[in-house]
């Protein structure tokens, strides 16, 4: 297998250029998909026969929860690549992902709580899914705190990468928690093998929100990694040709 593309992508000037070109191609479809998905979810989708209009929180809760897991997986993978192959750009990707992932994890917990109050009768329950998601938030916060506690960037990269890699064990625990333990939280309705249990009028806006959120993450990541690259490569001569 030819790995030239991988090594090229790991080059900061190349990635800086590619990320700049990708940004509008991710941000504009993300905005359109999110606007369409939210409109479909709030206005077009019919009320749920059991949960009435409270179910509409799913259009922001499920994409936030999806991003919380995806961001951590990306962060841990990038951290592992940085540790194993000593690629600085991979550490930049991990560092840029952490605040995005943390904010969406907090959002997933908050919107879940706002949905749980009318449906379960409680804002919070020490349930396996909720508790493991809370641990995920602490892992993100721990990762960011650990990074900022070092003055030396190389040491910060390595120490925080170790934490990210160890913490990835929590990701499958969150996903399978509803099957492994008795949980108030419902099981998978969209992302399960076979057909979804949701009707198309409810499912399509949800899929639009999920895809829009994923593209939004891509756009945010491009912008944040570009900023990280500029800070890390402050002495590099290639900057003069690229910073405009």
């Amino acid at each position, binding site marked *: 297998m030819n790995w030239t593309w991988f090594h090229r992508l790991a080059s900061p000037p190349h990635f800086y250029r590619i990320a700049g070109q990708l940004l509008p191609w991710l941000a504009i479809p993300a905005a359109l998909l*999110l606007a369409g998905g939210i409109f479909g979810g709030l206005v077009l989708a019919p*009320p749920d026969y059991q949960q009435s209009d409270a179910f*509409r929180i799913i259009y922001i809760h499920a994409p936030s929860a999806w991003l919380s897991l995806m961001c951590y997986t990306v962060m841990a993978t990038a951290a592992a690549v940085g540790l194993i192959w000593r690629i600085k750009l991979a550490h930049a990707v991990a560092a840029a992902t952490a605040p995005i992932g943390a904010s*969406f994890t907090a959002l997933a917990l908050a*919107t879940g709580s*706002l949905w749980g109050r009318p449906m379960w009768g409680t804002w919070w329950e020490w349930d396996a899914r909720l508790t493991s998601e809370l641990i995920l938030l602490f892992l993100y916060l721990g990762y960011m705190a650990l990074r900022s506690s070092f003055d030396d960037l190389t040491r910060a990269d390595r120490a925080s990468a170790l934490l990210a890699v160890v913490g990835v064990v929590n990701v499958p625990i969150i996903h399978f928690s509803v099957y492994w333990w008795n949980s108030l939280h419902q099981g998978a309705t969209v992302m399960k093998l076979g057909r979804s249990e949701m009707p198309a009028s409810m499912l399509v806006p949800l899929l639009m929100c999920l895809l829009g959120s994923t593209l939004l993450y891509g756009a945010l990541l491009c912008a944040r990694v570009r*900023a990280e690259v500029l800070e890390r490569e402050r002495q590099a001569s290639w900057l*003069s040709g690229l*910073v405009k």
Partner: protein
Amino acid sequence: MSDVERFLAMGGYARFVWPAYALWAAVIAGNVWSAWRALDRARTRALRRLAARAAESPDGSRA
């Protein structure tokens, strides 16, 4: 009850649905703003460093 009022009432769950959407909008806006600000700051600092380096070099060219 008009259609708009019915929509805003969210079947009696307005006090849960609308704060959730407000939080979502705030998190999205906060993420976009902070990513834009980080990139803008990094770019400004890089330009400042390049200008300082150019001023220090004997021929005045950018290194």
